[in-house]
């Protein structure tokens, strides 16, 4: 990770054209700018969540709502959410390994780690589908009985805002994961076709990686502010 960043560039030269002030390619810088604005959206969601929680007289405790795990009956508070967090962290690690392999122009390595990242993304998305259906099913665990299903207007756990924030925050995040998986698949196809090999560098993996890490970053905050607190 040496290179441009550690190279001494006279301060005067940076602003005189031909060079970016950040010593960064245009695409990567714009990805950062996009992520900054996207983070503000999530920031607004989480601040609104905090506002409602301070305003609400009662708010459910998450370990009494999210204690199911697939196929097994019993009380496992937050276990599955922790698993989902772990999956996302691991897929973030495989992504960073793909970026690292890209810096060595190691096509086989990039392919391997990109596939691992995509699998992690699919596991997370599948988990979220399961989590949503369990949440909607309510206390009796049946999605077909409407009486205690969690909807936008009411839910068996607490104030309607509890379910509304669940749908908005995790739904918005889940859609980001979904688009991240699509982006990673497109990048993987390009890697396999040798597009970046011809270009001489794998910077696109790095840009896709920035987005994917951002998705992980958002989940870290959602995990704390929605599930833990």
């Amino acid at each position, binding site marked *: 990770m040496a290179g441009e960043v550690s190279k001494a560039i006279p301060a005067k030269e940076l602003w005189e054209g031909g060079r970016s002030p950040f010593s960064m390619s245009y695409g990567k810088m714009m990805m950062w700018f996009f992520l900054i604005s996207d983070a503000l959206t999530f920031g607004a969601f989480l601040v609104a969540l905090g506002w409602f929680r301070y305003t609400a007289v009662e708010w459910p405790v998450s370990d009494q709502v999210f204690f199911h795990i697939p196929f097994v009956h019993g009380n496992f508070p937050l276990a599955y959410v922790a698993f989902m967090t772990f999956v996302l962290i691991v897929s973030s690690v495989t992504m960073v390994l793909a970026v690292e392999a890209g810096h060595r122009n190691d096509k086989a390595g990039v392919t391997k780690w990109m596939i691992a990242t995509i699998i992690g993304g699919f596991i997370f998305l599948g988990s979220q589908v399961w989590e949503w259906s369990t949440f909607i099913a309510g206390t009796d665990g049946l999605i077909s009985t409407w009486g205690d299903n969690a909807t936008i207007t009411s839910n068996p756990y607490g104030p309607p805002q509890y379910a509304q924030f669940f749908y908005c925050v995790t739904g918005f995040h889940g859609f980001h994961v979904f688009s991240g998986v699509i982006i990673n698949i497109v990048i993987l196809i390009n890697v396999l076709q040798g597009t970046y090999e011809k270009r001489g560098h794998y910077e696109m993996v790095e840009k896709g990686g920035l987005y994917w890490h951002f998705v992980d970053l958002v989940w870290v905050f959602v995990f*704390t502010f929605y599930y*833990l607190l």
Partner: protein
Amino acid sequence: MERDDIIEYSLGAQHSEEEGKKIRKNIFKVTILLSVITAVEVLVGILFSKSNPDVSAGTWEAIKYGYIILTLVKAGYIVMEFMHLGHERKSMKLTVLVPYIFFILYLIFIAINEAVAVSGENFPINY
């Protein structure tokens, strides 16, 4: 098409096999750290649940701030190491971080302040 108007900065980011080994070791360390923090958070959440009557309000208050600090540590490692911001130029770091230090902290302060002002009797949430 050959383009000579763009300097490929990413070429400067390329590294050799030995450097790669060092970087992978660092990635591994950060992974362990993030996993351990998550495990600790979940264990604390189970053992000192807010719903547990033995856990006093004061204890939960301390846990709450502990959670926020641990979250910021995790976020810091993800942004600085995984997203590589820690190794970018200082001007880039400030461009990304300053909006949050000013805007988000201000927003949190205002939101919490206002929520406390309107909470309870003045603005009950009925369900």
